[in-house]
């Protein structure tokens, strides 16, 4: 116990302990305290009035004259379209700060003392003539010519204090249309704004717009007048016969695609080409237009075939055109040499006596005892393919081999050693 007493004495002697304990304690007590409530004071009726002008122009100073005999503190509540503020009145004749006379519309003055309304007054503040930049809006920012789409232009002319000008002020909307026509509209402001709707005309391009009201101007506005949907589409005729080499690409392109009234469709419009061969195999290529023309490159087939080509864009479809592909593969050998463990197919050559393209796919089928034991598509290298017999599971030495490539189909019976 004696030791504990010593501890306590030591603690009391050290000031740092006070700090460590007392600060949190103070903070804790502070946080627990309730807020002080205010009491309501009863006030006797005090007559008081405000004298001032009823109507002014924005920016004109407002002088106030308050008639009152009371000694209690008076407050003036000012309300305009921007909000409410309270002034403490120390002097009965005074001028309102300029900011209150800058905002057009109605300024409400209410004289209070404590919780009692003594008098109220309204001052109408009229805007001045338009002088600043005209705020303007336009939408949509692009309109389609074929659909005679509407577009609305809105302008808000304001005076030097940023107040919208008086109703029935005249705003002049000037427009230079893509067909070089200059249009001028005089629009009266109504409900603070002036607005008018105009429609797309037939030519594509930019409509440039300027606005003026009294001494005020707007920045340049513009609307893009854009072409509509692809209307009539057709394909350009190509040479009629092509070689079915399964390697090269050919280009087909559309004629210039236009909308209903003859404007070239927008760059980037998607166009889909559908190619159907004689065996009803479809190929589908897409491209987007540049200056109204879309083109694709498509791969040649390996087999002689007549292609029907159609093209789709938007909701339009073209008449088909036809392309003939001719294959011209020479007969090729299938060789098996004694003692070698492989069958050599080829060399396969084509119309210029060159090898067929590397990677051309030949289909090899091996039949033994009326049973298919091998069926695979293989790629040729320099026109040839070597079939390794090790990889096959052949039970006897008589096989029937069939190789097909392009229009050629060769069958051969082989006897293996």
């Amino acid at each position, binding site marked *: 116990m004696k*030791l*504990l007493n010593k*501890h306590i004495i*030591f603690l009391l002697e050290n000031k*740092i302990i006070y700090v*460590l304990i007392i*600060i*949190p304690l103070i*903070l*804790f007590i502070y*946080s*627990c305290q309730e807020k002080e409530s205010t009491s309501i004071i009863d006030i006797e009726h005090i007559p008081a009035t405000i004298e001032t002008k009823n109507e002014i122009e924005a920016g004109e100073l407002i002088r106030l004259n308050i008639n009152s005999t009371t000694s209690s503190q008076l407050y003036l509540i000012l309300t305009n379209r921007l909000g409410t503020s309270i002034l403490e009145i120390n002097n009965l004749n005074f001028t309102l700060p300029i900011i209150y006379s800058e905002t057009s519309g109605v300024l409400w003055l209410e004289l209070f003392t404590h919780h009692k309304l003594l008098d109220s007054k309204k001052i109408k503040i009229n805007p001045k003539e338009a002088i600043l930049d005209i705020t303007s*809006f336009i*939408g*949509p*920012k*692009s309109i*389609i010519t074929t*659909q005679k789409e509407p577009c609305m232009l809105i302008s808000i002319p304001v005076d030097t204090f940023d107040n919208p000008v008086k109703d029935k002020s005249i705003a002049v909307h000037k427009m230079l249309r893509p067909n070089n026509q200059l249009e001028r509209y005089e629009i009266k402001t109504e409900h603070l704004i002036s607005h008018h709707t105009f429609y797309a005309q037939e030519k594509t391009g930019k409509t440039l717009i300027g606005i003026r009201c009294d001494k005020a101007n707007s920045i340049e*506005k513009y609307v893009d007048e*854009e*072409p509509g*949907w692809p209307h009539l589409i057709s394909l350009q005729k190509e040479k009629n016969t092509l070689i079915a080499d399964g390697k*090269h*690409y050919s280009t087909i392109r559309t004629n210039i695609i236009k909308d209903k009234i003859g404007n070239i469709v*927008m*760059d*980037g*419009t*998607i166009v*889909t080409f*559908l190619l159907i061969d004689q*065996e*009803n*195999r*479809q*190929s*589908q*290529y*897409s491209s*987007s*237009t*540049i200056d109204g023309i879309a083109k*694709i490159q*498509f*791969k040649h087939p390996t087999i002689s075939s007549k292609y029907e080509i159609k093209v*789709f*864009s938007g*909701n*339009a*479809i073209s008449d088909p055109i036809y392309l003939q592909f001719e294959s011209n593969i020479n007969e090729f050998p299938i060789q098996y040499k004694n003692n070698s463990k492989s069958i050599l197919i080829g060399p396969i050559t084509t119309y210029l006596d060159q090898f067929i*393209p*590397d*990677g*051309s796919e030949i289909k090899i089928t091996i039949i033994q005892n009326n049973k298919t034991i091998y069926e695979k598509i293989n*790629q040729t*290298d320099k026109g040839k393919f070597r079939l390794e017999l*090790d*990889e096959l*599971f052949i039970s006897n030495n008589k096989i029937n081999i069939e190789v097909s490539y392009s229009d050629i189909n060769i069958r051969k019976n082989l006897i293996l050693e």
Partner: protein
Amino acid sequence: MPLKELHIKEYSNTTILCSILVLAFLVHGSLVMFSFPNTYDNFVHTFFADHYRRYWFEPWEYRWYTGFTTTSYPPLVHQLGALFSFIFSLKSSMIFVWILVICNFVFAIYRYAKIWVDEKSALAAATFAIVSPSIVEAVHVFGQLPTITGIGFLLHATTETYKWIKYDKKFYLVSALSLFAVTVAAHHVTTIFGMIFFVAPVILTALMDRKGIKKVELKLIPVRTYLLEIWKYRYKLAFFGFIFLVILIGVMFPYWYWSKTDPITQVPIPHGSRDSFLEVKSSGIAFFIIPWGITLALLPYLFKRFFTGRNFFIGMSFALLVLLGTGGTTPIPKLLLGENAFNILTLDRFTFWATVMAIPFIGQFFLRFYKGDYNTYLKNKIGRTSKLGLQFIITLFILLQTILIVHLNQFRPLQPKSIDIDPITQFLDRDQHYNWRFLTLGFGDQVAWLSANTEAKTIDGNYHSARRVPELTSRAIERLENSKFNGVEGLGSLQQFLTIPEKYHLKFIFSNDKFYDPLLHYVGWHRVQRLENGIMVWEKQDIKGLPPRLPKKTIPLYQRIMWGTLPLICLVIALAINIYLRLWLFRIKGKENDPSYHLPLDFTDQKQKTFWAHPILLFFIPILMFWWSAQDIIYKSPQANPEKTILSYYDALDFKRFKEAHSYFNPEHELSFDQYIMEISVDDGLLSSYAKLDAIETTILAQTDSTAEVNTKTTWITPLEKYKNEEIILLEKKNNKWFLQPKEFDISIPPDQFISQPAVRYFKQGKRRVSVISTVTDDVVDRPELFIHSARLVKKDSLISVVGEIQNTDNLPAHITITAQILDSLGQTITTYNAKYGVQHKILPKEKTAFKIDFESLSWRNENDNKPSTLNPNEFKGHIFKDDNITCKIFAKAVAENTDIYKYGNIDKYHLTQKDGVPKIEGNIINTGVDEITIPELIISYHNENCQVKWVEHQFVSKAIRPQRKTNFNYKINNLEKIEIIQKIKSKDLYVNGLQQDVFLKGRNINSCNDPYMIYDNNKIKLSVNSFVGVPSLY
């Protein structure tokens, strides 16, 4: 002075202790500087420190998980870091705290060791504490700052408690309690478990020591005397326990308040320490082999010492800790802790405490080994030179082990490479990008460091105990940013966040891992720019910014003040008592004596018979451990039969060990490694670049003595879907080994060497005047107009989808977002979801795309569902609708798009085939553009005779397509009989850019049936290609 007299005994123990502390300071001080950014947790603690630096008295943190409270973690070290950060930089101040904490820990070990061993051994123990593998791992691999702080103060407190019981001086009680308060403030878990595992046995030992014979303290006292002694102490102990509880609850009151009042329940996150260490080797290495390290060889010695005489109680505690530390290897820890606690606790901390508990005895062992009786024994047995050699080798093992652990992340990277975060913070600061949430991918724990350096908020976070977003709390995922490591739940959760990013105002993604690129592309994100540090910024268009005021949970003022002041006050009081008061009491006032409580130097406990075992164990166990850890690398898989060869080959391929993969090819085929690696390098696509092998199944089709034909079915995990592949592999036998026949590569060559291509390219100016004010109306591009041709609510296999077709009727390319909202019969929203894969997100003017919206349920699984064992991003929990009378509204919106539009994937020669009675569409996809299509996707829509959409499907094609090349595809036509139409969605329920479609169309009819269809069985089928370009030539 003759050299012989300069013996270690000449130095006072204080001098030696000071040298040890200086050593600890130097070693760990310099190492922490280096290992700091590579650890798991350091950045998280830095982030918390940054929080206190910014808002000391406001625990609410907005930056992670839509906000969480920092009262969810003990604040002492974070507040210390924050305090020092007013002087140093944030990182330096954390490193400074680390150095102080480590020195304190080493000092604490010295004091704690004196309870169990003599003073010289305690000094040896303190020296060993510097290189103890578990400490090195906790500091330099895991970065567990609060744990080390906690254990340091706990050991001090334990020592003081021991002295209080033994010498009955109240000063020690005050001192112990003040230290407990600091421990609580540093790490509450350490305090609670420390009370059970450290303090309780020490109290029992101290009570024994009181009655024990003073001189030879290793003998036990009679049980009866002992029990009486405990009975005598019951009030004191109860008082001690009561005050301890008051401190535990009082100091951390806001924490307990949070954990009791927070209504959010979290799904526990799997942790490697709960694995069976024999099955999951990596966990075994990280949570058992490394923390024990070389001391594993000393376990027999330790158990012998722990169960000798008065050490019995601490021995029990030690044995229990060792057992619990083995995790899921045996079922015992689960039985002891119970299912619930087992799944919440990380069990590696038990191993950590066990190793800390053992340090005094290990120190004693090494003293004996280098200086004491072992030394003499070895000298007599094997001679002086051999003995010195052995001692040298063991020392080398210990030092090498320390270096190995510190550099662990060099051998096996645990974290992505260090990322320079400055460009990211600059990006976030620029043009008010902090107004949206961001997400990082592949950053590892550096996400915390990024957050610490910016005010911008992420939806993710790095402190999973405080997760608040339902998509995260309902799944066992730690973070979104490394979701590829979290299996089905990780990627599934990430996919949900990415598909409906507007829910959390998520607009920017910083990607450091290209694995996620296909996913981001196909859910409708696009690349913005690559920052200087190589991080790709992805953006989702048309996301609203964060509201100016975000929701927050208010924490009462008294709690905020408690939280902000108490931890540091506790620390100051503890320091005042333990330094100032102790000096005043024992030195200045000088009446009392601070008794030396350590044991006398006495090695007589162990018989020399077993001495031979320890050096042998010490020599062989480390070698054995190293061999066990590295045996996968040393042994190559065999090629004894065809299946094993295929498995080994795929394994090599999966881990990108191409040299090894090449070695499985038949050398007779003359495929050189150079050619092979060349062919591999141009082989891109979903399977080659974005997939992980999940399962492999082989069936031998034919086999002879020397050849075999094997059908191999592989399943791959990709960021998009689970992908199945099937191929037939031929093998040959050479020299009793099976070899693969090399795969045939495409040898076709494109016809043209140089290709030109005209294209329309777009650019969006954005703000035309450089200014910080928000975009002026003139700079806002109108939303492209869309038209929904048809839409239906359909049901397949009890899951509901919305399918339809939409067209861009504008002249601008559009990025579209299609949202479907399901309402019940009362008009209440049941769910909303966006179109994910089954749509082209970017469409050109007049382009049509089919779309399909599936409704994913928020929670992946019910509580009683089992955790899926493998990763399957395609696995999907559909929303189950209870109400039959549902209606649907569709909201499509678009913004003008200018990037990542690639429309050159075309379909060549597709046709219907029938194979085994299954109708299929076969064909090729040709790339006619000038960029490589990394992952092509086919969107297949089924239409009725009026061209209205009946069903939509998508299929990813596994191979990349280089320009002027093709890849074939094979699509199985779906049987539409299973699809039930619930309703055709009326045109009044279709909204485009916020307006009813009927309203803005004003009677214009743009319906059309002119599209390239393929007719099959009264259905019209339309195909279109969606392309993901992994590396656009622009970037």
